[in-house]
């Protein structure tokens, strides 16, 4: 029984770790899409950020500088997306896909050119990686039955970015529903003409959303290369950007739902890892792919209308053009 509890704690622990990049990317997408800019380029921005963070953290031995570089790369890519889809009113899907390709190719190319390790960045030196944060009292309560492991294993002992990601959820909710910026952001994603006639710049508002999206994907990407792992490897995002997008739909573009969706998808991922090569009684060995596809299957089921309805912001994906009435 105690063993099972221990296993569960470990499972949940790795759920948190695996959910973190999803959650950051999902919130990033939330800002962007709430403002009316569809972003299929979350994946590319994360990948670019992961590389930037890995490279700079290796060169400087400073995780914070690495994070800053990751954010810088992602914001840069976000601005390209903004320039294409807001300023030039281009197709947002095409622009996003282009960014994904750009990031996939460029990270390997630059990685090989700079470090000659097949597109990887070298293993990070001491200080180049975010370490575990041990919360006060974690050691002291470790041996308290039931609650002890819960606190010291599950709550404590993650790196700072994990806490940041989860703190971003209530913060995002507050920004979205309690501030002027949030009101305008939600409005511009539903009816940009209403925002324009209220004397607010649609372009500026959407750029701000896209930059926030860049910052958050930057953190998400950096998490992968300098917190969760110790260095960048090619294609290390492995579709997390797309899963985050699926989670966003699953969450119906709401921040707290986004957290639950990402936790669910993270949990599935954790299960996949835990059950790898093991057989479940009665069922036998379950291929990892089953768990890996589940987020997508769940999203398709949702979109098919079985779990309520997911209605995106009305103006998302539609460039705003002042009409010649």
């Amino acid at each position: 029984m105690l063993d099972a509890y221990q296993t569960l704690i470990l499972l949940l622990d790795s759920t948190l770790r695996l959910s973190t990049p999803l959650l950051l990317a999902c919130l990033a997408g939330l800002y962007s899409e709430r403002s009316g800019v569809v972003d299929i380029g979350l994946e590319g921005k994360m990948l670019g950020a992961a590389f930037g963070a890995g490279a700079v953290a290796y060169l400087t031995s400073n995780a914070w500088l690495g994070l800053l570089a990751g954010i810088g790369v992602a914001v840069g890519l976000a601005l390209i997306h903004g320039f294409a889809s807001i300023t030039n009113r281009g197709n947002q899907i095409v622009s996003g896909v282009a960014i994904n390709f750009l990031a996939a190719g460029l990270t390997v190319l630059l990685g090989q050119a700079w470090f000659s390790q097949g597109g990887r960045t070298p293993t990070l030196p001491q200080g180049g990686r975010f370490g575990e944060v041990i919360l006060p009292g974690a050691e002291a309560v470790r041996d308290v039955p039931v609650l002890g492991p819960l606190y010291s294993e599950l709550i404590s002992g993650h790196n700072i970015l994990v806490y940041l990601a989860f703190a971003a959820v209530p913060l995002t909710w507050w920004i979205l529903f309690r501030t002027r910026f949030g009101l305008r952001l939600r409005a511009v994603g539903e009816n940009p003409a209403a925002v324009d006639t209220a004397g607010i710049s649609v372009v500026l508002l959407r750029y701000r959303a896209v930059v926030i999206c860049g910052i958050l994907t930057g953190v998400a990407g950096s998490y992968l290369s300098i917190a969760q792992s110790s260095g960048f490897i090619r294609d290390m995002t492995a579709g997390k950007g797309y899963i985050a997008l699926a989670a966003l739909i699953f969450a119906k573009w709401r921040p707290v739902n986004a957290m639950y969706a990402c936790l669910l998808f993270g949990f599935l991922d954790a299960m996949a890892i835990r059950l790898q090569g093991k057989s479940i009684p009665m069922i036998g060995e379950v291929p990892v792919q089953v768990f890996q596809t589940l987020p997508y299957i769940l999203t398709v089921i949702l979109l098919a209308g079985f779990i309520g309805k997911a209605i995106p912001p009305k103006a998302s994906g539609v460039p705003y053009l002042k009409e010649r009435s």
Partner: protein
Amino acid sequence: MSETPAIELRGVNKSFGPVHANRNIDLLVGKGSIHGIIGENGAGKSTLMSILYGFYQADSGSIHVDGREVRIADSRQAIDLGIGMVHQHFMLVDPFTVLENVILGAEDGATLSGGTRKARQELRRLEQEYGLKVDPDAVVGDLPVGLQQRVEILKALYRGAEILILDEPTGVLTPAEADHLFKILEVLRDQGKTVLLITHKLREIMAITDTVSVMRRGEMVATLKTAETSMEELAEQMVGRSVLLHVEKTPADPMGTILEVEDLNVTDARGVRVVKDISFKVKAGEIVGIAGVSGNGQSELLEALAGIRKADSGRLSIRSETLDLATMDIDPALMREKGMGHVPEDRHRMGLINSFAEYENAVLGYHRSEKYAKGLLLDIAAIKQEAREAIEKYDIRPPSTDLRTANFSGGNQQKIVLAREIERDPDVLLVGQPTRGVDIGAIEFIHKRLIELRDEGKAILLVSVELDEIRSLADRILVMFDGAIVGEREAGADETELGLLMAGVQDQGAASGAVAGEKA
């Protein structure tokens, strides 16, 4: 007008490429008055108001507000100058509450709590002062259009508007709602606000304005005191020649029933029943009009009859052939084959492909016909020849078969659709909003053509939200409310009575007897 005018425009010009939308416009609007601006579609009214509201910048000319020359670079500046605008298509965020819509852009601080509290108080004050009642916590998308418009007015007043511009405000309202709006506007004027009312409806100008300016082809052709003018004079000024405001027609001489609809029910994508147990007949040689406020199931009715929308139940007999609309495999091509022409309500969405050339649109839906085939290919020459004939017969301008339809005016686009459907010699013609966004000259033509068609012995089902149009064209009027036919009236029916039916006030006594009698 001795005091300073609220608005003065001097020599305002605005061009979009080769189109001179506003030419040397001078305009004086007195403070505390209701000033109407009337003109056909494309006369430049909306452009002029957009300049005033900072949506566009004038190429030349000056704007004076309260006697001071101003530059209005964007809507923010217009708002700061006390100018508010109620747009034709509401600028509201549907999932937001009334309160959120009102404070958008005027939030009063970086967080919302303070502004919300203030707005709540202010709304209460405005309600008392102007009788503008609306629940601040209602979600705007759930409100009927009349109330949504009220939210737009409240938005402007909340921002301290002294000058209120309303662009075609009655297009979406029932006659009763329109009357209510006019009362509100009168209260606003009496409280010292200035109201600019843009419309193409002469009746409204006569009913409510103090002064009226007429625009024609980008120019301001006259400014008159409403009391000293007449509908005829204004119409003449708008078009530049005298116009017949009333459709001339002889009483209908209906023959046998051609179209019969029985027990039609339609559910829309949201699962709402939008057409409820509808049965009616249309005889050869008569126009049956369906009146109703937009969104009461008329569109779905029309689409179901045209074969675009699936019905839950319903039979349709055309001549002597009966089709089951629920079980049979119905599509628009089949309906056309059976002799049903369809002029859809929204020509941009359904009637035309605007990036296609005129001649391509002129055969759309009939392109499978043998007439236009040359082996596997289309016989372009034959199509163009026919298109040219239609252009001549319907006076479509410019007379070009190769121009994209996007470049035709609304009236001419509508004539292209009308020509396409009528010239295929259908037995029944379904017509939806034939003159929406169409200028007066073209309206006159379209109305005449429909009457001619009736006199040729065709059956016409006319759906329109313009009650005047229904009253002047239809030989029998069916009123739809909430998906059902709630009353039937003869051609000369009283407007107020129809208005009440359209608003869902239950039909009593004689009329229900008449409907029952018809069924028996």
